[in-house]
């Protein structure tokens, strides 16, 4: 079970990490622990795999890459075969089966934004199925809070 201080760290440190000379000391004070304890806790959380990292979350498009969400209607009996074809593209990530007629959902990420359309055409050609491109038009992001 997670103790109270671990929970507090996870709940309060999902953003707004200070950009000051001694940010850990500042956060530790707010949490009522010492800087050493905070650094130890973060190290433990990383070692346990509860955090993927402690650092920045980048905005892919603002770094110059192409990123979109795409969906396909895949016949159930061809699902595994199509999944293998789609996943073979290195640009495909986070491929999920979902309960809808559009039942395969994945992220496409390309180094050049204009490659998105080309990859979609290649996937359509290889699978013989339509790919719906669902590009992001706006993001309503108000700071993730995953409570533990």
């Amino acid at each position, binding site marked *: 079970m997670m103790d109270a201080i671990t929970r507090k760290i*996870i709940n309060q*440190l*999902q*953003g*707004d*990490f200070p*950009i*000051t*000379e*001694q940010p*850990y000391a500042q956060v530790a004070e707010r949490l009522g622990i010492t800087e050493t304890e905070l*650094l130890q806790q*973060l*190290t433990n*959380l990383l070692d346990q*795999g*509860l*955090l*993927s*990292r*402690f*650092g*920045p*979350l*980048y*905005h*892919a498009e*603002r*770094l*110059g*890459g192409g*990123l*979109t*969400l795409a*969906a396909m209607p895949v016949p159930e009996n061809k699902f595994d075969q199509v*999944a293998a074809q789609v*996943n073979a593209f290195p640009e*495909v*990530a*986070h*491929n*999920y*089966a*979902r*309960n809808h007629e559009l039942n395969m*959902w994945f*992220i496409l*990420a390309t*180094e050049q934004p204009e490659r998105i359309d080309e990859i979609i055409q290649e996937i359509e050609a290889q699978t013989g199925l339509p790919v*719906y491109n*669902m590009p*992001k*038009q*706006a*993001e*309503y992001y*108000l700071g*993730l809070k*995953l409570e*533990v």
Partner: protein
Amino acid sequence: MDNLTESEQRLIETIQGGLPLVARPYAAVGEQIGLTEAEVIASLAHLIQIGVIKRLGIVVRHRQLGYRANAMVVWDVPDAQVTAIGQQLGQFDGVSLCYRRARHLPEWPYNLYCMIHGKDRNAVLRDLDKLIAIYNLSHIPHQVLFSRRCFKQSGACYTFRSVTICLPQRAAGGG
């Protein structure tokens, strides 16, 4: 990326895997790339301000924290209301991401997407009911798409120029 300075690019690359867990992390980063602590602090503030860095802090693994169910809830919101409703949904505690996306009429009328994470499907559905009640959304057509299987998780990192970006799991339905 083209409008970032060379030192900003180096900074982005250097901290992509995480900040050093030492008392003065920005001084440590600066030492690696030939910048002063003050320059690193100023650059980071700038990168956050222009939105290249969305957040700085803990990046969690949902599954490892016991959040095993995720639903992508899609809504067909009149265009004139999408911003207002999107902002409301984004504020709700169980919602991790909220995006407006292109519709594909006639078969896909949905233009607003949000991800809801929960310990299990029932928890997600309870959150959704609460959300609909709080924001008065029962008249907005929506669908709940649960994930059944995840086929590809390992490919969640991409390299743009020399920066490798790893999407957190919660981005799965949101991007």
